[in-house]
């Protein structure tokens, strides 16, 4: 038992209802999402399959030529287990077309280009099949800003955005997803040998425990340190959260008129229809 443990059945019920209800408001009854072979997209796909029916969900595999073949293997397992529709769109030509012509060699830039090419594919297939793009970013990575803006973070509805990584794993087990997907080390698979925990410099278990105390329970820095979190760790995570706020918000609009979008033009996404 962990303080992060969720009531999985309750969460499943709420998230499935959320997907159906929010998509329905915009006249959508179909979904599109990238299936990477990782646990996040597997859980989103499983929830979408329950909300819309497997035949109304398109899982898209988008490998790059250096992607780990195991990722695609796991993605296929997820798609087969859920019985959802699938499509394979290799992004190598798209990525190389831009990167080679413009001399983009830096690893991080190439990774961002890959993530944004995948976004382009998903949004195009969204238009092709009238399916809403379902997000796969969890609360841990949203808070840490561990994602590419307008890339893997782009979606219309995100059922995972309020679940820490620990909770995504828990939900994945409840939803009966393939063991290899749940047990492997999380990775964005943007370059060879990449793992989330190596890149972040801490484990999900450590940071989830910190985040729930810091964000959900509003503990002060003093309280966290007294509880045994290393001060450097607390500061590093707090800094990351603050620095990445821009990724979580729409672009900044300079106010000029009496009523400006996002400042004092306040409506939810659907109203009055």
């Amino acid at each position, binding site marked *: 038992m962990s*303080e*992060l*443990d*969720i*009531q999985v*059945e*309750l*969460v499943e*019920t*709420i998230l499935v*209802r*959320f997907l159906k*209800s*929010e998509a329905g408001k915009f006249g959508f009854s179909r979904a599109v999402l990238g299936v990477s072979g990782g646990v996040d997209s597997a859980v989103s796909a499983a929830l979408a399959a329950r909300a819309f029916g497997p035949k109304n969900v398109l899982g898209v595999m988008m490998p790059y030529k250096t992607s780990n073949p195991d990722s695609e293997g796991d993605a296929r397992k997820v798609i087969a287990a859920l019985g959802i529709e699938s499509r394979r769109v290799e992004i190598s030509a798209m990525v190389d077309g831009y990167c080679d012509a413009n001399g983009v060699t830096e690893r991080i830039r190439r990774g961002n280009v890959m993530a944004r090419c995948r976004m382009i594919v998903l949004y195009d297939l969204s238009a092709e099949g009238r399916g809403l793009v379902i997000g796969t970013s969890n609360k841990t990575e949203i808070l840490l800003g561990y994602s590419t803006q307008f890339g893997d973070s782009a979606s219309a*509805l995100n059922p995972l955005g309020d679940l820490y990584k620990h909770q995504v794993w828990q939900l994945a087990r409840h939803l009966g997803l393939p063991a290899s997907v749940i047990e492997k080390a999380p990775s964005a698979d943007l370059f060879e040998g990449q793992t989330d925990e190596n890149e972040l410099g801490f484990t999900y278990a450590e940071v989830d425990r910190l985040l729930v105390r810091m964000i959900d329970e509003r503990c002060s820095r003093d309280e966290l340190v007294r509880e045994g979190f290393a001060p450097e760790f607390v500061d590093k995570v707090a800094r990351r959260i603050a620095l990445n706020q821009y990724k979580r918000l729409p672009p900044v609009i300079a106010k000029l008129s009496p009523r400006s979008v996002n400042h004092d*033009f*306040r*409506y*939810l*996404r*659907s*109203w*009055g*229809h």
Partner: protein
Amino acid sequence: MNCRVQLAQVEPTLGNIDANLAMHLAEIDLAVKAKADLVLFPELSLSGYFLKDQTAEVALALDAPPIRRLLERSKEISIAVGFAERARDGRIYNACAFLEDGKVLAVHRKVHLVQYGMFEEGRDFAAGERFDVVESRRGRFGILICEDMWHLPASWLHFLAGVDAILVPSSSPGRGVTEKEPRLRSTQVWHTLQEALALFFQTWIVYVNRVGSEDGISFSGGSRIVDPFGRETARIEGVETGRANAEITGDALRRARVSTPLRRDEKPWIVLRALESGQRELERNEEREGGSSRA
């Protein structure tokens, strides 16, 4: 007093009064069929909850056609409905109208607007100032809209007035999924509060909460009726739309109040004295500091 109350756990469409009115009329049909005397709808049931800038666009005066339509139906059954009320002076309130026999018997304007966390009611609504009793032919009711229930003096005033039931229309978002039991933390907290108030104030508590999702915020339902002993007598399971009814009876009130005569033994004048002396102290402090916080 005996009154069969129907809880209408509905899912309003944000900002669409026409669709919501049709939904209310359908629920009223069902309540009439179920032989209910009173049907209770959630907070802002005619308009939806997170209105923000829509507040002024969907606000209704008491003589607006949708209210008139409901007034017609109130000849068959008493109706408590939530809406954004445009008062004569232009202020807009988060209100619950109690309609009976073709008349507006009472309008409760939410006193404790929620203005923290995800809530911005204080930005869009004016606050009510009173906790009046609804003198209905079905019984004597106090109405508390959602957050009103979290402020003990609100239900205490209804206790002093000796109401038969406190009606609580609510639009409460579900949150907290890490409890040991398979129930939302927020639902659990509401239930605890209802039972506590029923016990403290020996009255029926009739709670109706909406369901559905508005921009990712899911309302958690959990509508129920609790008797004056703090025991549940009706409940709608889950977070789906639904309805349930139960009779609220004067017999239960009598039995509860005879076995433990809390109202008889209450000493509100002690509270009054404390408030008055606190007020005098406040005034003395203000004089000393040479200012006044009051206009």
